[in-house]
């Protein structure tokens, strides 16, 4: 046996060296120490995988995204209903003809009037009204800034906590982002994007909307 240098416990009880100090150094020791560290380190990192992975949403949370059906006849013109889908508030707003007609007037003040930025807007909603049917606006009521739920202030005009030139829409109480009645964010607000439009489908007779399914009826 050989080693790098003599160790304390190499000295035997009678004071003589148990191992000859003149033996040449053994580079294979260094190699095995490094190998043991590398293998042990890899095992340590691998052990972290299940712990880090356990932070991801559980199978139950992933499965809880069942579609939600809303009866449109229960929402009179100019009114809004909030339903829960995947734990988030989803708004169904029945816009009046006047509200629909006024939407293009907002365009100069909006950050992204045609919803050209990626994400948040499915293809079918990439229009002035951000909806399949101009009358019904469906959106996830979660601000794209930091996830508060904006408050609907559908009527134009000033109100407590609102900007003086309020045109009607949704106002986020947390950081002051404002959205018009198509969920489009106004310029120079903290929120970078328009409100998310979820996948949804109208029933064949147009009386219901199902939130959480696309054209192919997939959740």
């Amino acid at each position, binding site marked *: 046996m050989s080693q790098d240098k003599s160790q304390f416990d190499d000295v035997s009880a009678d004071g003589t060296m148990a191992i000859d100090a003149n033996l040449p150094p053994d580079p294979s020791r260094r190699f095995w120490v490094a190998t043991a560290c590398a293998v042990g380190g890899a095992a340590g990192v691998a052990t972290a995988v299940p712990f880090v992975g356990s932070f991801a949403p*559980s199978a139950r*949370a992933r499965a809880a995204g069942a579609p939600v059906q809303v009866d449109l006849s229960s929402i009179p013109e100019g009114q809004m209903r*909030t339903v829960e889908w995947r734990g988030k*508030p989803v708004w169904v707003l029945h816009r009046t003809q006047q509200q629909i007609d006024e939407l293009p007037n907002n365009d100069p003040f909006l950050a992204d009037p045609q919803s050209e930025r990626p994400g948040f807007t499915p293809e079918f909603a990439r229009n002035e009204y951000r909806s399949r049917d101009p009358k019904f606006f469906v959106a996830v009521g979660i601000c794209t800034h930091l996830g508060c739920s*904006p408050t609907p202030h559908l009527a134009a005009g000033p109100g407590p906590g609102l*900007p003086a030139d309020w045109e009607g829409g949704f106002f986020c*109480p947390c950081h002051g982002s404002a959205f018009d009645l198509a969920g489009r964010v106004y310029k120079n607000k903290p929120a970078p994007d328009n409100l998310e439009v979820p996948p949804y489908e109208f029933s064949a007779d147009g009386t219901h909307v199902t939130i959480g399914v696309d054209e192919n009826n997939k959740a």
Partner: protein
Amino acid sequence: MAGEKTVETTGLLGWIDRRFPASKLFKEHMSEYYAPKNFNFWYFFGSLALLVLVIQIVTGIFLVMNYKPDGNLAFDSVEFIMREVPWGWLIRYMHSTGASMFFVVVYLHMLRGLFYGSYRKPRELVWIFGMAIFLCLMGEAFMGYLLPWGQMSYWGAQVIVNLFSAIPFIGPELSLWIRGDYVVSDATLNRFFAFHVIAIPLVLIGLVVAHIIALHEVGSNNPDGVEIKDGPKDSKGRPIDGIPFHPFYSVHDLVGVAGFLIVFAAIVFFAPEMGGYFLEFNNFIPADSLKTPPHIAPVWYFTPFYSMLRAITADFTWVLAAAAVLGAVAMFLRGNLRGIWRIVVPVILLVVAVLLRVIDAKFWGVVAMGGSVVILFFLPWLDHSPVRSIRYRPTWHKYLYGIFIVTFLVLGYLGTQPPSPVFNLMSQIGTLIYLGFFLLMPVWSRLGTFKPVPERITFSAH
């Protein structure tokens, strides 16, 4: 006896000392730790922070005995503690008041360090351990605030977790991973509970030990910022301007403890909600994932940083980008960086200026908020003043510190208020002052006429 050490102590203590360095540790850290004799009022806050830590741990243990970390039960279990558990209201109010008082004490402790240059060489690690404690404390307070599962708990957590979603590319996945669900939910509550009661307290205690060991290795600074170790020494080599921590400062600190407990008890018994600043009124409404309260704000101790988060709008990034370009030009023309750094640093600043306009303002808001805390870690290397203590700095430095303190308080107030154009402009100015104070410190801290620093500490017996 063979194998046993020789020690001075006898009897039971001697038996222990032969097996465990009890007397040695006591001497090193208490009776033979020599601290400067000119400590003033500002030196109470270190020991007070330790006291509050003990209060939080003890009351926390008793709260866990009745609290239920469950989305359906949490809110009710807190009300159960408040109304039905004998003395439960007192234990909870001590814990909630302790949280706010922890920050009061720690902010004053940090301000003391700023005044007297206590972070300067060789105390950089004392400061860095302290900043790590501050970070842990922020995490601890944030996660603890979710546990009552009220509206503010819920939406506060929603906003802060979503901060991570602002990070380009990985952000949305990262915030999903932190929450463990698509919205803040039972899964989030449970993991925050685990962090709040086990993980962070363990780290916190370890860091406090490291903070004190590092301090006792280099010795305490003092209001004059002169080293007692460099002054005259007695025959045993002890600095004559130092006095043993025990009994002199251990007893002295008891005065601070008494004063603190008077204030603490007054809040616990007469104003535990502190007008909505310590316990926010909206948090007496159970969490509702479909409705954000009309006005949400973090607890007061986070509001200065929160104001800076809100201050960064798309227009304001023009101002920041302009500041970065100016900084790059100044660094290149006048800076005293050597060699390649003279090019590299200005180029980095120019890249930052471009990115400021390319990446969403939302991301930069998060950067400003995080950066305003992280920048404090670098204080030992930002301060280039030839003297440590504010006592021997030019008078106008004191005004700068004053402006900084006022800015911090104003930002704190603005963070509690609903957003408005005037307040937003004010918080933008405040953000510039806060960041400028630290980023320009390498320049302004060496300017002016400094007063002569005495050889020894100034002290008059009273």
